[in-house]
C-alpha cells in the first residue's frame, strides 16, 4: 500500500496562472479531504468528499478554488488565477469513514506563487 499519493510535490506558478493539484487516495477509503497548511494559519480544512460526492466545501475560497473527484481513485484541487497568498502546502487525506476514523495524509504539494 503506497499510502495517499499527491502530485506534484512542488509547483511554482506565476501570479495569475492556474494550478491543478492531484491526489490519489488509499484504495477502499470512502472519504477524501483537502487541507491547506501555512505557518501562520496552521492546518485549514478546505473541502471533503464522501463516496466521490462533495459534502462540505465550507473552507474553500469561493471564487478561485474548486475541487472534484471524478472517480474513486483520484481527486483534484484547482486554483485559478493564483495569487501569492495561495502559497502553502496543500495536503490531501483519505479515511475509511468520518469522525472517529483515522485520516491518512499524503506528503503534500508545496505551491509557490511568484
Amino acid at each position: 500500500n503506497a499510502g495517499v499519493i499527491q502530485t506534484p510535490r512542488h509547483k511554482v506558478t506565476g501570479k495569475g496562472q492556474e494550478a491543478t493539484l492531484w491526489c490519489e487516495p488509499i484504495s477502499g477509503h470512502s472519504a477524501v479531504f483537502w487541507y491547506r497548511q501555512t505557518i501562520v494559519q496552521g492546518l485549514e480544512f478546505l473541502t471533503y468528499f464522501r463516496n466521490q460526492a462533495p459534502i462540505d466545501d465550507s473552507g474553500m475560497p469561493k471564487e478561485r478554488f474548486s475541487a472534484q473527484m471524478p472517480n474513486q481513485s483520484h481527486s483534484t484541487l484547482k486554483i485559478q488565477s493564483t495569487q501569492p497568498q495561495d502559497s502553502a502546502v496543500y495536503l490531501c487525506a483519505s479515511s475509511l469513514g468520518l469522525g472517529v476514523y483515522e485520516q491518512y495524509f499524503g506528503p503534500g504539494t508545496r505551491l509557490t506563487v511568484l
Partner: protein
Amino acid sequence: SQWGEENLQALSIQEGEDVTMNCSYKTYTTVVHWYRQDSGRGPALIILIRSNEREKRSGRLRATLDTSSQSSSLSITAAQCEDTAVYFCATDTEGADRLTFGKGTQLIIQP
C-alpha cells in the same frame, strides 16, 4: 495550549525528559485525534481518544481527555531525539464529520 488564536507553539527539552502538550477545544467533541508531523511529510495519527475514555496509552505516549473542561493532553515519557516533530490535536467539533486541527506544538528534543 493549541487552540484559539494562538500560533504554533514551540517546546524544547532534553532527551530523557518527560513532556506534556495541551489542547483545549471549544465545543462538544466525540473524539480527539493526536497527530505528529515530521518535516516534509503529512501528519500521521499517533493516538486517538474517544469521549468515553479518560486516558489512552500507546508505548511512551499517554493521552488524556477531560470533557468537563474540554481539554486533552498528550504526554511523552523519556523523550527521544526521534520524537522531534510538530504535534497536532484535532477534534470532530460538535460531532461534525470533519476534523478541526489545533495550531500545533513544535517539539524539539535536544541530545
